[in-house]
């Protein structure tokens, strides 16, 4: 369509109605049943985002890296006598049973010999000696990390008076099945230990450094 001539900047020579008639949109509308034909929305038009960020930055993705299972020191094998270096049983010599899924070491005194129950211990707080105990008769299959989970305390509703009294905590008694498990694990172990002379007294004694000991030169 030829452009309408202008009288001056922004002032057109023909009127609105005149240009409408001239453009012939009325004829197109009549052809298409009264409405101006609309072009179909193409997928490209629909999909094109209306906002483009200023920089091309890759979106951060959550890491799919899985942590490796804890490596067990080659000097620690089932039946090894370990020396505990920290905690309540510091210095106690203890028998290693197996490594749990969490990476912690499952360990027992045996309880009757040195008072260390079936317990979990971190590899970092342990010296592995080269003394091994025969552990073939011991079954530790059913002991895992869940065995050591804490019991969830049930919160009883307290009245105002009771709140200010010193809280009477229920004395945590060891459940019977844990005592039974301890006895079962230790029975075979103690027999194996008593077969070796002096091993029982060795496990009952605590380790300590004396004058003149050079731990970096000592063979464990």
């Amino acid at each position, binding site marked *: 369509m030829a452009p309408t001539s202008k009288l001056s900047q922004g002032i057109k020579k023909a009127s609105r109605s005149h240009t409408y008639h001239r453009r012939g949109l009325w004829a197109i509308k009549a052809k298409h049943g009264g409405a101006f034909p609309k072009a179909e929305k193409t997928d490209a038009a629909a999909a094109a985002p209306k906002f483009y960020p200023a920089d091309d930055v890759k979106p951060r993705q959550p890491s799919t890296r899985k942590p490796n299972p804890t490596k067990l020191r080659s000097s620690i094998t089932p039946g090894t006598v370990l020396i505990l270096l920290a905690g309540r049983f510091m210095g106690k*010599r203890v028998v290693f049973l197996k490594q749990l899924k969490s990476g912690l070491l499952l360990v027992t005194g045996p309880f009757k010999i040195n008072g260390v129950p079936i317990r979990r211990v971190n590899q970092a707080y342990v010296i592995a*000696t080269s003394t091994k105990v025969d552990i073939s008769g011991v079954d530790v299959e059913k002991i895992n990390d869940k065995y050591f989970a804490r019991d969830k305390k049930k919160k009883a509703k307290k009245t105002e008076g009771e709140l200010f009294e010193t809280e009477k905590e229920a004395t945590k008694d060891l459940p019977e099945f844990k005592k039974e498990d301890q006895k079962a694990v230790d029975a075979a172990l103690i027999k194996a230990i008593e077969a070796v002379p*002096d091993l029982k*007294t060795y496990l009952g*004694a605590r*380790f300590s450094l004396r004058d003149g000991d050079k731990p970096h030169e*000592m*063979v*464990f």
Partner: protein
Amino acid sequence: MPFKRFVEIGRVALVNYGKDYGRLVVIVDVVDQNRALIDAPDMVRCQINFKRLSLTDIKIDIKRVPKKTTLIKAMEDADVKNKWENSSWGKKLIVQKRRASLNDFDRFKVMLARIKRGGAIRQELAKLKKVAAA
């Protein structure tokens, strides 16, 4: 007192410094004022400074720089190994090595044995004292 142990071809010495620390070697040649050529049945012949050697009483009969097999035969003829292990110096070294290689359990057993020995000694002493007092 005059010197008794000389640097000479055939002198058995102990290496007291360096990579071969603690090894018994034989002086097979003298390089110069400071160094000797040493050899042992289980090592490559090499030169070493005299300062790194401690001379022993043992001497074997060899010519200058013998072949390895000749050296080994000469050492066996002189019975160096047994002479060394029966000498007090050699015995001390063996005990030192044994003590250093003791396990934690071994050290515990040694402690029990020393206590037992001490107890036995004290008992005997008490008996003797009783006899002397009477």
